[in-house]
């Protein structure tokens, strides 16, 4: 887009142009860059020693561990599910296809708090399955399984949502070609479908991971806030903040922020790769 030839005939007057640019940049600085800088500034205000101590504290370490565990379970699950759902929706026509599409969006539409409440309602002591679980001494809510469940639910749509438009656009023709040439279903998936969607898939996984790590609402409801046991990173930050340990809160927050920045960097790197999926020597002759 930046290559468009610019001429006075199609452009706005200079004053308008600069005002608009200044407005956009000002907005960006105020709402994105200043808060970002503030997080790190606050975190380091009492010195590096305090910063590191806050990160090394056992409760913080346990929160990091739990957060990573939840992501480590939720992301692979949603990867498999997202792939299967996108494959089905994009390559086949079947009864209930649009219903499935709508259901995938449900976690986006429902407030995370309500998602958490649903799990309490289902698995809590007074919930539908509560007595049955209690009889078998299985703790779901206010324990690690509940947090994993809530995280999985909230991050459910990311991979599928990323893949469906991509696979719909690519259509079923390459797969049909592979099958006619004698490939089995698995060979077709491995050699044709997967390579075509790998960047989109990775992108979906990155977004899914980012959300799994940062999820607050749903996890907050099912967690029970047991320090060192059922606190994830975002919950830990909230507790520290509420107890006026500002430096520590921001130190842990900076950890999450760093994760977010890494995710963003990986995402833009991927977007860059996706634009040139093949080692193009000459410009493509037809637009894909």
């Amino acid at each position: 887009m930046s290559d468009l030839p610019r001429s006075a005939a199609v452009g706005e007057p200079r004053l308008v142009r600069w005002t608009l640019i200044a407005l956009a940049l000002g907005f960006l600085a105020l709402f994105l860059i200043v808060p970002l800088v503030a997080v790190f500034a606050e975190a380091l205000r009492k010195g590096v020693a305090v910063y590191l101590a806050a990160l090394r504290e056992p409760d913080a370490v346990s929160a990091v561990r739990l957060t990573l565990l939840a992501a480590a379970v939720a992301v692979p699950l949603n990867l498999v599910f997202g792939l299967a759902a996108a494959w089905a929706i994009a390559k086949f026509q079947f009864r209930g296809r649009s219903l499935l599409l709508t259901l995938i969006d449900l976690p986006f539409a429902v407030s995370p708090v309500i998602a958490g409440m649903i799990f309490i309602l289902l698995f809590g002591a007074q919930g539908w399955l509560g007595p049955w679980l209690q009889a078998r001494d299985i703790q779901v809510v206010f324990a690690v399984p509940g947090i994993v469940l809530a995280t999985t639910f909230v991050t459910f749509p990311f991979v599928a949502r990323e893949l469906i438009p991509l696979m719909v656009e690519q259509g079923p023709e390459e797969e049909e070609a592979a099958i006619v040439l004698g490939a089995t279903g698995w060979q077709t998936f491995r050699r044709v479908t997967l390579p075509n969607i790998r960047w989109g898939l990775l992108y979906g996984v990155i977004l899914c991971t980012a959300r799994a790590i940062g999820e607050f609402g749903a996890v907050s409801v099912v967690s029970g806030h047991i320090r060192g046991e059922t606190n994830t990173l975002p919950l830990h930050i909230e507790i520290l903040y509420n107890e006026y340990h500002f430096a520590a809160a921001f130190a842990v927050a900076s950890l999450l922020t760093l994760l977010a920045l890494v995710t963003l960097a990986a995402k833009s790197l991927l977007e860059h790769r996706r634009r040139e999926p093949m080692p193009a020597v000459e410009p493509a002759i037809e637009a894909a």
Partner: protein
Amino acid sequence: MSIEARGLSKRFGGFVALDDVNLVVPSGELVALLGPSGGGKTTLLRIIAGLETPDAGSILFHGEDATERLVRDRQVGFVFQHYALFRHMSVFENVAFGLRVRPRRVRPPEQEIRERVMELLTLVQLDFLADRFPSQLSGGQRQRVALARALAVRPKVLLLDEPFGALDARVRKELRRWLRRLHDEVHVTSVFVTHDQEEAMEVADRVVIINEGRIEQEGTPQQVYEAPATPFVYGFLGDVNLFHGRLHRGRMSIGGAELELPEFAEAVDQSALAYVRTHEIEVAPAPNGHLAIEAVIRHLRFHASSVLLELDRVADGQVMEAEIPRARFDELGLVKGQRVYLSPRSFRVFPTGKPPRTE
């Protein structure tokens, strides 16, 4: 290997794509499925390939029922309209795909795969592009890669869906001739779908004309062109003038001229259609004989070796077209607005209304 379709029917929701289609493609022939878009040609091709299942009827390969056979066991080569090349693989890997996915015990060794792929790429004259990716090729080159890929597995049947549809006119012409030559070399039973009558006529041994899910006519290009079986075929092949009129006791009036039709001597006041091809019309500056349609030249279109006249009939104001050779046009010295007399050299009449009454 011969292909036979028996009583094939297929519906998509309320849309009838195929309606009791019967067809035999003899071994080694190159057959064109010709018809307007949405007529069911592609559906028929996809059912033969196994990419679509018929609601009724069966497909026989070499006399054996193959209706339930898995796509990958049918040994067909399929060339898709938009090529469907594997975009992340090089040209070489695209062609090698069918050999590489074979089960280990029947997979040829790497050396043999290499030789086979290069042999095919030489056949389609693209061996110098083996390392390129599909996005770096032109449309015509992609189409030839798609053909090489389909031929790599030595299919018993080659199916092509609008193989030249997405190419520009010049490349299309070149590839058509090339496909014909290729078929004469490889001799695999081939079926291709097209909506371009010129393409079907030029390339195929036999032409099957399909419309609204039914076969209208099949035969050699010459047969279907010279003896169209139905009004649809007449209208679809070549440029024609259509006259609506009434048949009565062996006579039909078209545009102010009377046709003598002894074969319809028993018809009584029956509605009918008469077809006259544009180049089968004699144009004269003065009436010559009883069968002459009076018309005024409205527009002239100059082609390479002929001139197309657009005319208004004097009798009813309807538009007609006549195509005459350049030499004849110069000889007559025709100009726009001139009054001329048209006499069809040949015509075909199809009664449309109630059948002729027998007395």
